């Protein structure tokens, strides 16, 4: 059975909302757009959809390989869908956290963070070569082993991605406290996309921000430290192919220069910025330098 895909259904709404945000930004100045950045983000979104369809068989075949070992067989019901949605969101949290902390996974995910702008088009700036992130497949294993139907897992994951679209905006400040406490919001996700030292490696949630609060990665957005978006070493290209490949080319270069298997594995699995001589910056070294600069009153 071909799973119902909420993302495909939501694409017209995505387009209308990006247009609406552009008009809103022009009228109020409460969001920023730049034409080449927007073109790159939208093209990345299209490329990701096309390549995702081409390589979908890898994910499907892997899931079918695991499915016979499922502990139970859960049928379709509202309760099962709700449970699967929450479980998938927890999976998303750990996949996302790993994607920021493991270089191999970061090579792919970095594309989503490569814009210095933060608007709804940024949500569509998606990687092209997810098929190369083989360890990422493992995050789906628990859901399959629990016994959720594969089509249900795909469906709730689509809902999760649709939810995450609208939080990529500066046009919305904050929601009521109860909502900000439970749900991922534009404010929380601005922190996640920021390169300010205090915001690095924070707010990995997809839908429920409670996972960050629970696992110690939550950071509140501050009025006195407005988020600055992008990556620590911002890329100097608007060419979608270069954007899609830059993390992989950099990794390949490092793997080629590795002295021995230990360095090779560290380049693959250590956090982004790791280097054998410590000459590059990781988020830890940046945060440590920043913390040392703060006055005791901070």
């Amino acid at each position, binding site marked *: 059975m071909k799973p119902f895909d909420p993302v495909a259904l939501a694409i017209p709404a995505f*387009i209308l909302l*990006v*247009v609406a945000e*552009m*008009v809103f*930004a*022009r009228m109020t100045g409460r969001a*920023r*757009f*730049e*034409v*080449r*950045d*927007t*073109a790159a983000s*939208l*093209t990345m979104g*299209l490329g990701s*959809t*096309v390549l995702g369809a081409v390589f979908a068989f890898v994910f499907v075949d892997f899931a079918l390989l695991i499915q016979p070992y499922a502990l139970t067989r859960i049928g379709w019901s509202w309760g099962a869908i709700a449970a699967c949605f929450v479980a998938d969101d927890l999976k998303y949290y750990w996949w996302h956290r790993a994607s920021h902390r493991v270089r191999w996974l970061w090579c792919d995910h970095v594309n989503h963070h490569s814009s*210095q702008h933060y608007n709804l*088009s940024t949500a569509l700036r998606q990687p092209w070569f997810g098929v190369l992130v083989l360890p990422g497949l493992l995050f789906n294993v628990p859901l399959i082993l629990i016994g959720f139907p594969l089509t249900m897992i795909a469906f709730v994951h689509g809902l999760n991605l649709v939810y995450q679209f609208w939080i990529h905006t500066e046009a919305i400040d904050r929601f009521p406290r109860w909502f900000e406490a439970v749900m991922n919001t534009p404010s929380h996700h601005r922190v996640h996309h920021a*390169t*300010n*030292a205090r915001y690095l490696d924070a707010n990995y949630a997809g839908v429920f921000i409670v996972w960050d609060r629970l696992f110690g990665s939550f950071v509140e957005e501050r009025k006195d430290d407005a988020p*600055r978006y992008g990556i620590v*070493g*911002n*890329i*100097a*290209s*608007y*060419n979608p192919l*270069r*954007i899609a*490949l*830059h993390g992989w*080319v*950099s990794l390949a270069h490092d793997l080629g220069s590795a002295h021995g298997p230990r360095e090779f594995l560290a380049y693959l699995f250590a956090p982004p910025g790791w280097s054998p001589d410590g000459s590059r910056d990781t988020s830890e070294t*940046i945060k440590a*330098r*920043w913390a*040392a*600069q703060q006055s005791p009153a901070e």
Partner: protein
Amino acid sequence: MGGMALQLAVSLAGIALMVGLCRLLFGAGETTLSAGSLTARLARDVPGFRAGRIAIGRDARAALVENASDGAVWLALARGDGMVTRKLARATNVVRDGERLALLLNEFTLKRAELDLADAADWEARLRA
């Protein structure tokens, strides 16, 4: 297959329309660099940054900025409505032709940067050191 090609064509046309609208609403968004924007940006991005010597290229699209705290030299390039910065490694690969300085960075998204500077020879020596 024909349906997929049509979907792709419609998607590309949609992107072109949205990019056109963005251009109409926000213009080309080309910025230029100034001492103020450079120091403000690096002060935010680099913990402990103190501005030292600053050299802005004649087209104001590229600049070199010294961090007085540690002596490191930063390259800044105007990109769209913002900028991209890089800390230059010691003994950066530099080629000078009169007042034109080319930095060979060999990055996948930034192979080369060029600056037109009155004191290009000074900066060449500084970067080669």
